[in-house]
Protein backbone atom coordinates (compact mmCIF):
# COMPACT_ATOMS: atom_id res chain seq x y z
CA UNK A 1 0.00 0.00 0.00
CA UNK A 2 1.16 3.54 -0.71
CA UNK A 3 2.10 5.26 2.54
CA UNK A 4 -0.05 8.17 3.65
CA UNK A 5 1.58 11.55 4.23
CA UNK A 6 1.35 10.95 7.98
CA UNK A 7 3.00 7.54 7.70
CA UNK A 8 5.76 9.00 5.54
CA UNK A 9 6.31 11.80 8.04
CA UNK A 10 6.67 9.21 10.77
CA UNK A 11 9.43 7.53 8.76
CA UNK A 12 11.15 10.90 8.46
CA UNK A 13 10.80 11.56 12.19
CA UNK A 14 12.06 8.11 13.19
CA UNK A 15 15.09 8.06 10.89
CA UNK A 16 15.96 11.73 11.10
CA UNK A 17 16.21 11.75 7.28
CA UNK A 18 13.71 13.36 4.93
CA UNK A 19 11.84 10.63 3.04
CA UNK A 20 9.85 11.55 -0.05
CA UNK A 21 7.77 9.61 -2.58
CA UNK A 22 8.39 10.37 -6.24
CA UNK A 23 7.94 8.48 -9.52
CA UNK A 24 6.76 5.33 -7.79
CA UNK A 25 9.73 5.09 -5.43
CA UNK A 26 10.71 6.33 -2.00
CA UNK A 27 13.81 8.51 -1.79
CA UNK A 28 16.00 9.70 1.04
CA UNK A 29 17.05 13.37 0.81
CA UNK A 30 20.48 14.01 2.22
CA UNK A 31 23.05 16.76 1.61
CA UNK A 32 20.98 18.13 -1.31
CA UNK A 33 20.98 14.73 -2.99
CA UNK A 34 18.31 12.06 -3.30
CA UNK A 35 19.07 8.40 -2.74
CA UNK A 36 16.80 5.62 -3.97
CA UNK A 37 15.34 3.49 -1.22
CA UNK A 38 14.86 -0.20 -1.86
CA UNK A 39 12.62 -1.22 1.02
CA UNK A 40 12.00 -4.61 -0.60
CA UNK A 41 15.60 -5.51 0.26
CA UNK A 42 14.59 -5.14 3.91
CA UNK A 43 11.76 -7.61 3.33
CA UNK A 44 12.72 -10.60 5.47
CA UNK A 45 11.05 -13.15 3.21
CA UNK A 46 13.04 -11.97 0.19
CA UNK A 47 16.30 -11.69 2.11
CA UNK A 48 15.78 -15.23 3.44
CA UNK A 49 15.20 -16.38 -0.12
CA UNK A 50 18.50 -14.79 -1.14
CA UNK A 51 20.27 -16.40 1.81
CA UNK A 52 18.98 -19.86 0.84
CA UNK A 53 20.46 -19.37 -2.61
CA UNK A 54 23.76 -17.87 -1.48
CA UNK A 55 24.38 -20.64 1.06
CA UNK A 56 23.55 -23.37 -1.47
CA UNK A 57 20.43 -24.66 0.27
CA UNK A 58 18.67 -24.34 -3.06
CA UNK A 59 20.74 -25.38 -6.06
CA UNK A 60 20.26 -25.91 -9.80
CA UNK A 61 17.79 -23.06 -10.13
CA UNK A 62 15.76 -23.13 -13.30
CA UNK A 63 13.53 -20.09 -13.03
CA UNK A 64 12.41 -17.30 -10.74
CA UNK A 65 8.81 -16.15 -11.09
CA UNK A 66 7.61 -12.78 -9.90
CA UNK A 67 3.90 -11.95 -9.91
CA UNK A 68 2.43 -8.67 -8.63
CA UNK A 69 -1.13 -7.46 -8.56
CA UNK A 70 -1.04 -3.95 -7.13
CA UNK A 71 -2.92 -0.68 -6.89
CA UNK A 72 -3.40 1.76 -9.78
CA UNK A 73 -1.35 4.48 -8.08
CA UNK A 74 1.96 2.70 -8.70
CA UNK A 75 3.53 3.47 -12.10
CA UNK A 76 4.28 0.41 -14.19
CA UNK A 77 7.89 1.38 -14.90
CA UNK A 78 8.75 1.72 -11.21
CA UNK A 79 7.10 -1.62 -10.44
CA UNK A 80 9.10 -3.22 -13.26
CA UNK A 81 12.33 -1.70 -11.94
CA UNK A 82 11.56 -3.00 -8.46
CA UNK A 83 10.85 -6.56 -9.64
CA UNK A 84 13.93 -6.60 -11.87
CA UNK A 85 16.03 -5.59 -8.89
CA UNK A 86 14.42 -8.27 -6.73
CA UNK A 87 15.24 -10.95 -9.32
CA UNK A 88 18.85 -9.87 -9.73
CA UNK A 89 19.35 -9.37 -5.99
CA UNK A 90 17.70 -12.58 -4.80
CA UNK A 91 19.39 -14.72 -7.45
CA UNK A 92 22.70 -12.81 -7.12
CA UNK A 93 22.77 -12.81 -10.92
CA UNK A 94 22.49 -10.29 -13.76
CA UNK A 95 19.91 -10.03 -16.50
CA UNK A 96 21.45 -10.68 -19.90
CA UNK A 97 18.43 -10.57 -22.19
CA UNK A 98 14.74 -9.64 -22.08
CA UNK A 99 11.58 -10.09 -24.09
CA UNK A 100 8.55 -8.20 -22.82
CA UNK A 101 4.96 -7.32 -23.58
CA UNK A 102 3.36 -4.28 -21.99
CA UNK A 103 0.57 -1.80 -22.60
CA UNK A 104 2.75 0.70 -20.66
CA UNK A 105 -0.18 1.47 -18.34
CA UNK A 106 -1.63 -1.54 -16.53
CA UNK A 107 0.26 -4.72 -17.42
CA UNK A 108 3.87 -5.74 -17.86
CA UNK A 109 5.00 -9.26 -18.76
CA UNK A 110 8.66 -10.18 -19.15
CA UNK A 111 10.76 -13.26 -19.84
CA UNK A 112 14.41 -12.74 -19.01
CA UNK A 113 17.54 -14.78 -19.39
CA UNK A 114 20.12 -14.33 -16.65
CA UNK A 115 23.86 -14.35 -17.18
CA UNK A 116 23.94 -17.83 -15.56
CA UNK A 117 21.36 -19.16 -18.05
CA UNK A 118 18.53 -19.24 -15.52
CA UNK A 119 15.27 -17.62 -16.58
CA UNK A 120 13.04 -15.10 -14.85
CA UNK A 121 9.44 -14.21 -15.52
CA UNK A 122 7.76 -11.03 -14.29
CA UNK A 123 4.01 -10.49 -14.48
CA UNK A 124 2.69 -7.19 -13.16
CA UNK A 125 -0.87 -5.91 -13.10
CA UNK A 126 -1.55 -2.53 -11.50
CA UNK A 127 -5.28 -2.08 -11.73
CA UNK A 128 -6.43 -2.61 -8.15
CA UNK A 129 -8.39 0.03 -6.26
CA UNK A 130 -6.16 2.14 -3.99
CA UNK A 131 -7.75 0.75 -0.82
CA UNK A 132 -7.19 -2.92 -1.67
CA UNK A 133 -4.07 -4.63 -0.41
CA UNK A 134 -1.67 -5.73 -3.12
CA UNK A 135 -0.52 -9.31 -3.63
CA UNK A 136 3.01 -10.20 -4.56
CA UNK A 137 4.38 -13.65 -5.08
CA UNK A 138 8.00 -14.53 -5.70
CA UNK A 139 9.01 -18.08 -6.40
CA UNK A 140 12.39 -19.64 -7.06
CA UNK A 141 12.10 -23.07 -8.66
CA UNK A 142 15.02 -25.46 -8.60
CA UNK A 143 15.75 -29.14 -9.01
CA UNK A 144 16.05 -29.60 -5.28
CA UNK A 145 13.14 -27.50 -4.09
CA UNK A 146 11.16 -24.29 -4.36
CA UNK A 147 11.24 -21.05 -2.40
CA UNK A 148 8.06 -18.99 -2.28
CA UNK A 149 7.03 -15.96 -0.24
CA UNK A 150 3.26 -16.50 -0.32
CA UNK A 151 1.73 -19.57 1.32
CA UNK A 152 1.15 -22.39 -1.15
CA UNK A 153 -2.39 -22.27 -2.43
CA UNK A 154 -3.08 -18.67 -1.42
CA UNK A 155 -4.21 -16.17 -4.01
CA UNK A 156 -4.06 -13.20 -1.66
CA UNK A 157 -1.64 -12.20 1.03
CA UNK A 158 -3.24 -12.62 4.41
CA UNK A 159 -3.16 -10.16 7.29
CA UNK A 160 -1.72 -11.03 10.69
CA UNK A 161 -4.84 -10.08 12.64
CA UNK A 162 -8.53 -9.92 11.72
CA UNK A 163 -10.67 -8.36 14.44
CA UNK A 164 -14.38 -9.05 13.98
CA UNK A 165 -15.68 -6.49 16.41
CA UNK A 166 -19.30 -6.17 17.42
CA UNK A 167 -20.19 -3.12 15.36
CA UNK A 168 -18.06 -3.71 12.25
CA UNK A 169 -19.34 -5.16 9.00
CA UNK A 170 -15.78 -5.76 7.86
CA UNK A 171 -12.99 -6.92 10.15
CA UNK A 172 -10.27 -4.59 11.33
CA UNK A 173 -6.98 -5.91 10.02
CA UNK A 174 -3.44 -5.50 11.28
CA UNK A 175 -0.07 -6.52 9.83
CA UNK A 176 2.45 -4.64 11.87
CA UNK A 177 5.86 -4.66 13.41
CA UNK A 178 7.17 -2.92 16.48
CA UNK A 179 10.24 -0.73 16.26
CA UNK A 180 11.25 0.64 19.63
CA UNK A 181 7.93 0.98 21.42
CA UNK A 182 5.72 1.87 18.47
CA UNK A 183 3.63 -0.03 15.93
CA UNK A 184 4.48 0.50 12.27
CA UNK A 185 3.08 -0.96 9.08
CA UNK A 186 5.30 -3.44 7.30
CA UNK A 187 5.88 -0.88 4.54
CA UNK A 188 6.97 1.76 7.03
CA UNK A 189 9.24 -0.69 8.83
CA UNK A 190 10.90 -1.73 5.56
CA UNK A 191 11.60 1.91 4.67
CA UNK A 192 12.97 2.69 8.13
CA UNK A 193 15.18 -0.40 8.07
CA UNK A 194 16.48 0.40 4.58
CA UNK A 195 17.34 3.97 5.61
CA UNK A 196 19.12 2.74 8.72
CA UNK A 197 21.12 0.18 6.79
CA UNK A 198 22.12 2.82 4.23
CA UNK A 199 23.27 5.18 6.95
CA UNK A 200 25.57 2.45 8.23
CA UNK A 201 26.90 1.64 4.76
CA UNK A 202 28.22 4.62 2.84
CA UNK A 203 29.39 2.41 -0.02
CA UNK A 204 25.88 1.05 -0.58
CA UNK A 205 24.54 4.58 -0.41
CA UNK A 206 26.76 5.65 -3.29
CA UNK A 207 25.67 2.71 -5.49
CA UNK A 208 21.96 3.47 -5.20
CA UNK A 209 22.02 6.26 -7.80
CA UNK A 210 23.80 4.14 -10.39
CA UNK A 211 21.59 1.18 -9.51
CA UNK A 212 18.50 3.13 -10.48
CA UNK A 213 20.14 4.03 -13.78
CA UNK A 214 20.88 0.34 -14.44
CA UNK A 215 17.34 -0.70 -13.65
CA UNK A 216 15.87 2.02 -15.82
CA UNK A 217 18.07 0.88 -18.69
CA UNK A 218 16.61 -2.65 -18.40
CA UNK A 219 13.07 -1.30 -18.11
CA UNK A 220 13.66 0.84 -21.19
CA UNK A 221 14.96 -2.22 -23.08
CA UNK A 222 11.88 -4.17 -22.01
CA UNK A 223 9.51 -1.47 -23.19
CA UNK A 224 11.42 -1.28 -26.48
CA UNK A 225 11.24 -5.06 -26.78
CA UNK A 226 7.47 -4.86 -26.46
CA UNK A 227 7.26 -2.20 -29.17
CA UNK A 228 9.55 -3.98 -31.61
CA UNK A 229 8.66 -7.56 -30.58
CA UNK A 230 12.32 -8.43 -30.35
CA UNK A 231 14.58 -9.84 -27.66
CA UNK A 232 16.88 -7.19 -26.23
CA UNK A 233 20.33 -7.89 -24.90
CA UNK A 234 21.32 -6.03 -21.76
CA UNK A 235 24.89 -4.85 -21.88
CA UNK A 236 26.80 -5.19 -18.61
Amino acid sequence: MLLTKEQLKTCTDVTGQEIVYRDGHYWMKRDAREYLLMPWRANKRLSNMRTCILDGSVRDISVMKSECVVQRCFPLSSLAAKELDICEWVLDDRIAEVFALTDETHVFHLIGRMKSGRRITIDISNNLHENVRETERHEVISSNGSLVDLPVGMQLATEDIYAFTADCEHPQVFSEVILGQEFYTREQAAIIRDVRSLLLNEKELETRESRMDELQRIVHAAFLSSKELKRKEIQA
Partner: protein
Amino acid sequence: MRKIKIAGLSLFNGHARMYFSFLMNSPMFDLVGVSVSPENRSRAFLHKLPGIPVYPTDEALLDAHPEVEAVVIAGPNYQNLDRVRLCAARGLHIYMMKVPTMQMDEYAEMERIVKETGIIFQVELQMRFIAMTRRLKKLIDEGAVGRVISIHATNMTHCIASWFTWVGDGIGSYGKDVPVRPGEKLLRGGAITDHPHIFDMMRYLTDSEYEYVYADCAPNLRKDMQVEDSVCILGRMKNGVMVSLDPSYSRMENPMTPLGPLGPGWEQYPRRVEVNYTVTGEKGVILVDCYNSGMYHTANPNHSYTMMPSHEDYHFERMMEDFYRCVCEKKTPVVTLEGHRPTIEVMNACYESISRQEPVYL
Protein backbone atom coordinates in the same frame (compact mmCIF):
# COMPACT_ATOMS: atom_id res chain seq x y z
CA MET B 1 -31.70 -44.89 -19.69
CA ARG B 2 -29.89 -46.57 -22.56
CA LYS B 3 -26.36 -47.63 -21.67
CA ILE B 4 -23.60 -47.17 -24.23
CA LYS B 5 -21.28 -50.15 -24.57
CA ILE B 6 -17.83 -48.66 -24.20
CA ALA B 7 -14.28 -50.03 -24.20
CA GLY B 8 -10.99 -48.62 -22.95
CA LEU B 9 -8.02 -48.76 -25.29
CA SER B 10 -4.82 -48.71 -23.24
CA LEU B 11 -4.73 -47.45 -19.67
CA PHE B 12 -1.40 -45.78 -20.16
CA ASN B 13 -2.43 -42.15 -19.62
CA GLY B 14 -2.47 -39.96 -16.53
CA HIS B 15 -6.15 -39.08 -16.77
CA ALA B 16 -7.34 -42.59 -17.63
CA ARG B 17 -8.00 -43.75 -14.09
CA MET B 18 -10.38 -40.81 -13.52
CA TYR B 19 -12.52 -41.90 -16.44
CA PHE B 20 -12.51 -45.60 -15.74
CA SER B 21 -13.41 -45.10 -12.08
CA PHE B 22 -16.46 -43.24 -13.35
CA LEU B 23 -17.25 -45.75 -16.10
CA MET B 24 -17.21 -48.62 -13.60
CA ASN B 25 -20.29 -47.19 -11.87
CA SER B 26 -21.96 -45.10 -14.53
CA PRO B 27 -25.67 -45.30 -15.33
CA MET B 28 -24.81 -44.14 -18.86
CA PHE B 29 -22.04 -46.51 -19.85
CA ASP B 30 -21.38 -50.21 -19.74
CA LEU B 31 -17.61 -50.78 -19.64
CA VAL B 32 -17.22 -54.09 -21.46
CA GLY B 33 -13.44 -54.42 -21.49
CA VAL B 34 -10.04 -52.79 -21.67
CA SER B 35 -6.88 -53.44 -23.63
CA VAL B 36 -3.51 -53.29 -21.94
CA SER B 37 -0.35 -54.50 -23.63
CA PRO B 38 1.46 -57.18 -21.59
CA GLU B 39 4.56 -55.01 -21.10
CA ASN B 40 2.44 -52.24 -19.58
CA ARG B 41 0.23 -54.46 -17.46
CA SER B 42 2.18 -53.78 -14.27
CA ARG B 43 1.83 -50.02 -14.78
CA ALA B 44 -1.91 -50.04 -15.33
CA PHE B 45 -4.43 -49.73 -12.52
CA LEU B 46 -6.26 -52.99 -13.18
CA HIS B 47 -6.91 -53.51 -9.49
CA LYS B 48 -9.34 -50.59 -9.81
CA LEU B 49 -11.31 -52.46 -12.48
CA PRO B 50 -12.47 -55.68 -10.79
CA GLY B 51 -14.43 -57.96 -13.11
CA ILE B 52 -13.57 -56.06 -16.30
CA PRO B 53 -12.04 -58.29 -19.01
CA VAL B 54 -8.53 -57.31 -20.01
CA TYR B 55 -7.17 -58.01 -23.51
CA PRO B 56 -3.56 -57.81 -24.68
CA THR B 57 -4.40 -55.87 -27.87
CA ASP B 58 -7.04 -53.45 -29.08
CA GLU B 59 -7.99 -55.83 -31.89
CA ALA B 60 -8.52 -58.72 -29.49
CA LEU B 61 -10.76 -56.55 -27.34
CA LEU B 62 -12.86 -55.24 -30.21
CA ASP B 63 -13.11 -58.67 -31.90
CA ALA B 64 -14.32 -60.20 -28.65
CA HIS B 65 -16.90 -57.43 -28.16
CA PRO B 66 -18.61 -56.52 -31.40
CA GLU B 67 -21.30 -54.83 -29.32
CA VAL B 68 -18.93 -51.96 -28.47
CA GLU B 69 -20.24 -48.58 -29.70
CA ALA B 70 -17.62 -46.20 -28.36
CA VAL B 71 -14.08 -46.16 -27.00
CA VAL B 72 -11.92 -44.12 -24.70
CA ILE B 73 -8.46 -43.88 -26.24
CA ALA B 74 -6.09 -43.43 -23.33
CA GLY B 75 -2.70 -44.42 -24.65
CA PRO B 76 0.56 -42.68 -25.55
CA ASN B 77 0.20 -39.81 -28.03
CA TYR B 78 2.30 -41.51 -30.69
CA GLN B 79 -0.13 -44.46 -30.90
CA ASN B 80 -3.28 -42.37 -31.26
CA LEU B 81 -3.48 -42.27 -35.06
CA ASP B 82 -3.33 -46.07 -35.35
CA ARG B 83 -6.09 -46.37 -32.77
CA VAL B 84 -8.23 -43.78 -34.56
CA ARG B 85 -7.83 -45.73 -37.82
CA LEU B 86 -8.79 -48.98 -36.11
CA CYS B 87 -11.85 -47.60 -34.34
CA ALA B 88 -13.14 -45.44 -37.19
CA ALA B 89 -12.99 -48.43 -39.53
CA ARG B 90 -15.41 -50.16 -37.13
CA GLY B 91 -17.61 -47.07 -36.84
CA LEU B 92 -16.81 -46.56 -33.15
CA HIS B 93 -17.25 -43.15 -31.55
CA ILE B 94 -14.07 -41.85 -29.92
CA TYR B 95 -13.36 -40.09 -26.67
CA MET B 96 -9.74 -38.94 -26.99
CA MET B 97 -7.25 -37.70 -24.40
CA LYS B 98 -6.10 -34.08 -24.62
CA VAL B 99 -3.35 -34.46 -27.27
CA PRO B 100 -4.56 -36.43 -30.31
CA THR B 101 -1.11 -35.88 -31.88
CA MET B 102 1.45 -33.12 -32.13
CA GLN B 103 2.26 -34.01 -35.74
CA MET B 104 0.09 -31.90 -38.01
CA ASP B 105 0.19 -34.39 -40.90
CA GLU B 106 -1.20 -37.03 -38.53
CA TYR B 107 -3.73 -34.52 -37.29
CA ALA B 108 -4.96 -33.89 -40.83
CA GLU B 109 -5.23 -37.63 -41.37
CA MET B 110 -7.36 -37.97 -38.23
CA GLU B 111 -9.59 -35.09 -39.37
CA ARG B 112 -10.07 -36.75 -42.76
CA ILE B 113 -10.99 -40.09 -41.16
CA VAL B 114 -13.48 -38.49 -38.75
CA LYS B 115 -15.10 -36.49 -41.55
CA GLU B 116 -15.41 -39.49 -43.84
CA THR B 117 -16.78 -41.88 -41.24
CA GLY B 118 -19.05 -39.39 -39.46
CA ILE B 119 -18.15 -40.73 -36.01
CA ILE B 120 -18.39 -38.56 -32.88
CA PHE B 121 -14.89 -37.52 -31.83
CA GLN B 122 -14.56 -35.68 -28.55
CA VAL B 123 -11.31 -34.34 -27.13
CA GLU B 124 -11.09 -34.19 -23.34
CA LEU B 125 -10.30 -30.68 -22.14
CA GLN B 126 -11.55 -30.55 -18.60
CA MET B 127 -10.96 -26.83 -18.16
CA ARG B 128 -13.86 -26.21 -20.53
CA PHE B 129 -16.14 -27.96 -18.05
CA ILE B 130 -14.84 -26.72 -14.72
CA ALA B 131 -17.03 -24.27 -12.78
CA MET B 132 -14.25 -21.72 -12.21
CA THR B 133 -13.47 -21.15 -15.88
CA ARG B 134 -17.15 -21.10 -16.79
CA ARG B 135 -17.72 -18.42 -14.11
CA LEU B 136 -14.63 -16.50 -15.23
CA LYS B 137 -15.85 -16.51 -18.82
CA LYS B 138 -19.24 -15.24 -17.65
CA LEU B 139 -17.63 -12.44 -15.64
CA ILE B 140 -15.49 -11.42 -18.60
CA ASP B 141 -18.42 -11.50 -21.01
CA GLU B 142 -20.54 -9.44 -18.60
CA GLY B 143 -17.82 -6.78 -18.55
CA ALA B 144 -17.00 -7.19 -14.86
CA VAL B 145 -13.51 -5.73 -15.41
CA GLY B 146 -14.17 -3.91 -18.67
CA ARG B 147 -12.19 -4.66 -21.79
CA VAL B 148 -9.65 -7.37 -21.04
CA ILE B 149 -6.06 -6.19 -21.51
CA SER B 150 -4.13 -9.24 -20.41
CA ILE B 151 -4.41 -12.75 -19.00
CA HIS B 152 -1.63 -14.32 -17.01
CA ALA B 153 -2.29 -18.04 -16.70
CA THR B 154 -0.47 -20.99 -15.16
CA ASN B 155 -0.91 -24.72 -15.56
CA MET B 156 1.91 -25.91 -13.34
CA THR B 157 1.96 -29.60 -12.53
CA HIS B 158 4.10 -32.48 -11.48
CA CYS B 159 5.33 -34.88 -14.16
CA ILE B 160 4.25 -38.49 -14.34
CA ALA B 161 7.10 -39.66 -16.60
CA SER B 162 8.36 -42.05 -13.93
CA TRP B 163 4.98 -43.84 -14.07
CA PHE B 164 4.05 -43.46 -17.73
CA THR B 165 7.47 -43.37 -19.36
CA TRP B 166 6.26 -42.21 -22.80
CA VAL B 167 5.42 -38.82 -21.25
CA GLY B 168 9.13 -38.12 -20.84
CA ASP B 169 10.09 -39.50 -24.22
CA GLY B 170 10.40 -37.38 -27.40
CA ILE B 171 8.85 -39.96 -29.71
CA GLY B 172 6.25 -41.19 -27.22
CA SER B 173 4.92 -37.74 -26.50
CA TYR B 174 5.78 -35.52 -29.48
CA GLY B 175 5.85 -38.24 -32.13
CA LYS B 176 9.46 -37.73 -33.13
CA ASP B 177 12.76 -36.59 -31.63
CA VAL B 178 13.16 -32.86 -32.26
CA PRO B 179 15.67 -30.82 -30.23
CA VAL B 180 14.16 -27.74 -28.58
CA ARG B 181 16.99 -25.69 -30.07
CA PRO B 182 19.41 -26.70 -32.81
CA GLY B 183 22.25 -28.76 -31.38
CA GLU B 184 20.67 -29.27 -27.95
CA LYS B 185 20.00 -32.66 -26.33
CA LEU B 186 16.73 -31.52 -24.80
CA LEU B 187 13.75 -32.59 -26.90
CA ARG B 188 10.23 -31.32 -27.64
CA GLY B 189 7.38 -33.23 -26.04
CA GLY B 190 7.38 -32.20 -22.38
CA ALA B 191 5.61 -29.39 -20.53
CA ILE B 192 4.16 -27.68 -23.60
CA THR B 193 2.86 -30.91 -25.14
CA ASP B 194 1.26 -32.11 -21.91
CA HIS B 195 -0.60 -28.87 -21.14
CA PRO B 196 -2.92 -27.95 -24.01
CA HIS B 197 -5.53 -26.63 -21.56
CA ILE B 198 -3.78 -23.35 -20.91
CA PHE B 199 -3.52 -22.63 -24.64
CA ASP B 200 -7.13 -23.63 -25.20
CA MET B 201 -8.35 -21.51 -22.30
CA MET B 202 -6.99 -18.31 -23.82
CA ARG B 203 -9.01 -19.02 -26.97
CA TYR B 204 -12.08 -19.84 -24.90
CA LEU B 205 -11.86 -16.86 -22.56
CA THR B 206 -11.06 -14.26 -25.21
CA ASP B 207 -13.20 -15.61 -28.05
CA SER B 208 -10.18 -15.04 -30.22
CA GLU B 209 -7.27 -16.87 -31.84
CA TYR B 210 -3.54 -16.42 -31.32
CA GLU B 211 -1.76 -13.78 -33.38
CA TYR B 212 1.76 -14.62 -32.22
CA VAL B 213 3.68 -16.32 -29.41
CA TYR B 214 7.16 -15.97 -27.99
CA ALA B 215 8.42 -18.89 -25.89
CA ASP B 216 11.55 -19.71 -23.99
CA CYS B 217 12.83 -22.81 -22.29
CA ALA B 218 14.58 -22.62 -18.89
CA PRO B 219 17.22 -25.15 -17.79
CA ASN B 220 15.43 -28.43 -17.12
CA LEU B 221 14.47 -29.19 -13.53
CA ARG B 222 14.64 -32.94 -14.10
CA LYS B 223 18.16 -33.46 -15.36
CA ASP B 224 17.52 -37.03 -16.51
CA MET B 225 14.41 -36.27 -18.56
CA GLN B 226 14.68 -36.12 -22.36
CA VAL B 227 11.95 -33.53 -22.89
CA GLU B 228 11.56 -29.91 -21.75
CA ASP B 229 9.97 -29.33 -18.34
CA SER B 230 10.28 -25.60 -17.70
CA VAL B 231 8.90 -23.08 -20.19
CA CYS B 232 7.53 -19.55 -20.29
CA ILE B 233 5.40 -18.02 -23.01
CA LEU B 234 4.20 -14.55 -23.98
CA GLY B 235 1.82 -13.80 -26.80
CA ARG B 236 -1.07 -11.82 -28.12
CA MET B 237 -4.51 -12.81 -29.30
CA LYS B 238 -5.92 -11.39 -32.52
CA ASN B 239 -8.30 -9.19 -30.53
CA GLY B 240 -5.33 -7.57 -28.79
CA VAL B 241 -5.39 -9.39 -25.44
CA MET B 242 -1.88 -10.09 -24.17
CA VAL B 243 -1.21 -13.51 -22.65
CA SER B 244 1.52 -14.75 -20.34
CA LEU B 245 1.49 -18.52 -19.91
CA ASP B 246 3.35 -20.95 -17.67
CA PRO B 247 2.64 -24.60 -18.48
CA SER B 248 5.71 -25.95 -16.67
CA TYR B 249 6.23 -29.20 -14.83
CA SER B 250 7.40 -27.03 -11.93
CA ARG B 251 5.66 -28.93 -9.11
CA MET B 252 8.36 -31.45 -8.33
CA GLU B 253 7.35 -35.02 -7.50
CA ASN B 254 8.76 -38.12 -5.96
CA PRO B 255 9.32 -40.94 -8.43
CA MET B 256 6.04 -42.80 -8.85
CA THR B 257 6.28 -46.53 -8.70
CA PRO B 258 4.03 -48.26 -11.22
CA LEU B 259 1.65 -49.63 -8.62
CA GLY B 260 2.51 -47.11 -5.97
CA PRO B 261 -0.01 -45.01 -4.11
CA LEU B 262 -2.10 -43.04 -6.56
CA GLY B 263 -2.45 -40.26 -4.11
CA PRO B 264 -0.43 -38.85 -1.21
CA GLY B 265 3.23 -39.50 -1.66
CA TRP B 266 3.70 -38.17 -5.15
CA GLU B 267 4.24 -34.63 -4.05
CA GLN B 268 7.48 -32.91 -3.18
CA TYR B 269 5.80 -29.54 -3.71
CA PRO B 270 2.62 -29.56 -1.61
CA ARG B 271 0.28 -29.17 -4.60
CA ARG B 272 0.57 -31.39 -7.63
CA VAL B 273 -1.45 -29.10 -9.92
CA GLU B 274 -1.98 -25.34 -9.96
CA VAL B 275 -4.14 -23.66 -12.57
CA ASN B 276 -4.44 -19.93 -11.97
CA TYR B 277 -5.59 -16.92 -13.94
CA THR B 278 -4.98 -13.22 -13.42
CA VAL B 279 -7.24 -11.29 -15.75
CA THR B 280 -6.49 -7.58 -15.98
CA GLY B 281 -9.17 -5.45 -17.52
CA GLU B 282 -9.51 -1.71 -17.97
CA LYS B 283 -11.70 -1.53 -14.86
CA GLY B 284 -10.19 -4.12 -12.54
CA VAL B 285 -8.63 -7.50 -11.96
CA ILE B 286 -9.96 -11.05 -11.49
CA LEU B 287 -7.91 -13.75 -9.76
CA VAL B 288 -8.81 -17.42 -10.16
CA ASP B 289 -7.46 -20.62 -8.60
CA CYS B 290 -9.12 -23.53 -10.41
CA TYR B 291 -7.89 -26.26 -8.07
CA ASN B 292 -8.34 -24.41 -4.83
CA SER B 293 -10.30 -27.11 -3.03
CA GLY B 294 -8.05 -29.46 -1.15
CA MET B 295 -7.57 -31.47 1.99
CA TYR B 296 -4.19 -30.76 3.57
CA HIS B 297 -2.33 -33.36 5.56
CA THR B 298 1.05 -34.43 6.85
CA ALA B 299 0.30 -38.13 6.83
CA ASN B 300 1.96 -41.10 5.18
CA PRO B 301 4.13 -41.83 3.38
CA ASN B 302 6.42 -38.79 3.66
CA HIS B 303 4.91 -36.80 6.54
CA SER B 304 5.42 -33.67 4.48
CA TYR B 305 2.79 -30.97 4.05
CA THR B 306 0.65 -32.15 1.16
CA MET B 307 -2.59 -31.12 -0.50
CA MET B 308 -4.86 -33.91 -1.58
CA PRO B 309 -6.99 -32.48 -4.41
CA SER B 310 -10.60 -32.60 -3.32
CA HIS B 311 -12.65 -31.14 -6.12
CA GLU B 312 -16.28 -30.51 -5.42
CA ASP B 313 -16.81 -29.99 -9.14
CA TYR B 314 -16.92 -33.38 -10.87
CA HIS B 315 -15.79 -32.17 -14.27
CA PHE B 316 -14.46 -35.53 -15.48
CA GLU B 317 -17.90 -36.98 -15.04
CA ARG B 318 -19.52 -34.06 -16.82
CA MET B 319 -17.21 -34.57 -19.79
CA MET B 320 -18.28 -38.20 -20.09
CA GLU B 321 -21.93 -37.19 -19.69
CA ASP B 322 -21.44 -34.74 -22.53
CA PHE B 323 -19.92 -37.51 -24.64
CA TYR B 324 -22.92 -39.69 -23.83
CA ARG B 325 -25.33 -37.00 -25.04
CA CYS B 326 -23.28 -36.40 -28.19
CA VAL B 327 -23.33 -40.10 -29.09
CA CYS B 328 -27.00 -40.66 -28.25
CA GLU B 329 -28.29 -37.46 -29.81
CA LYS B 330 -25.67 -37.11 -32.57
CA LYS B 331 -24.63 -33.72 -31.18
CA THR B 332 -21.35 -31.89 -31.74
CA PRO B 333 -18.99 -32.19 -28.76
CA VAL B 334 -17.74 -29.12 -26.88
CA VAL B 335 -14.22 -29.83 -28.16
CA THR B 336 -14.00 -31.47 -31.56
CA LEU B 337 -10.88 -32.54 -33.40
CA GLU B 338 -11.31 -29.64 -35.82
CA GLY B 339 -11.96 -27.16 -33.02
CA HIS B 340 -8.87 -28.32 -31.14
CA ARG B 341 -6.56 -27.84 -34.14
CA PRO B 342 -5.60 -24.17 -33.44
CA THR B 343 -4.55 -25.18 -29.92
CA ILE B 344 -2.19 -27.85 -31.19
CA GLU B 345 -0.92 -25.40 -33.80
CA VAL B 346 -0.06 -22.75 -31.22
CA MET B 347 1.70 -25.35 -29.05
CA ASN B 348 3.86 -26.19 -32.06
CA ALA B 349 4.39 -22.47 -32.67
CA CYS B 350 5.79 -22.23 -29.13
CA TYR B 351 8.32 -24.93 -29.96
CA GLU B 352 9.21 -23.06 -33.14
CA SER B 353 9.68 -19.88 -31.14
CA ILE B 354 12.00 -21.60 -28.67
CA SER B 355 14.01 -22.93 -31.58
CA ARG B 356 14.15 -19.65 -33.51
CA GLN B 357 14.34 -17.45 -30.40
CA GLU B 358 11.85 -14.97 -31.83
CA PRO B 359 8.07 -14.51 -31.90
CA VAL B 360 6.21 -16.84 -34.23
CA TYR B 361 3.05 -15.66 -35.96
CA LEU B 362 0.14 -18.03 -36.43
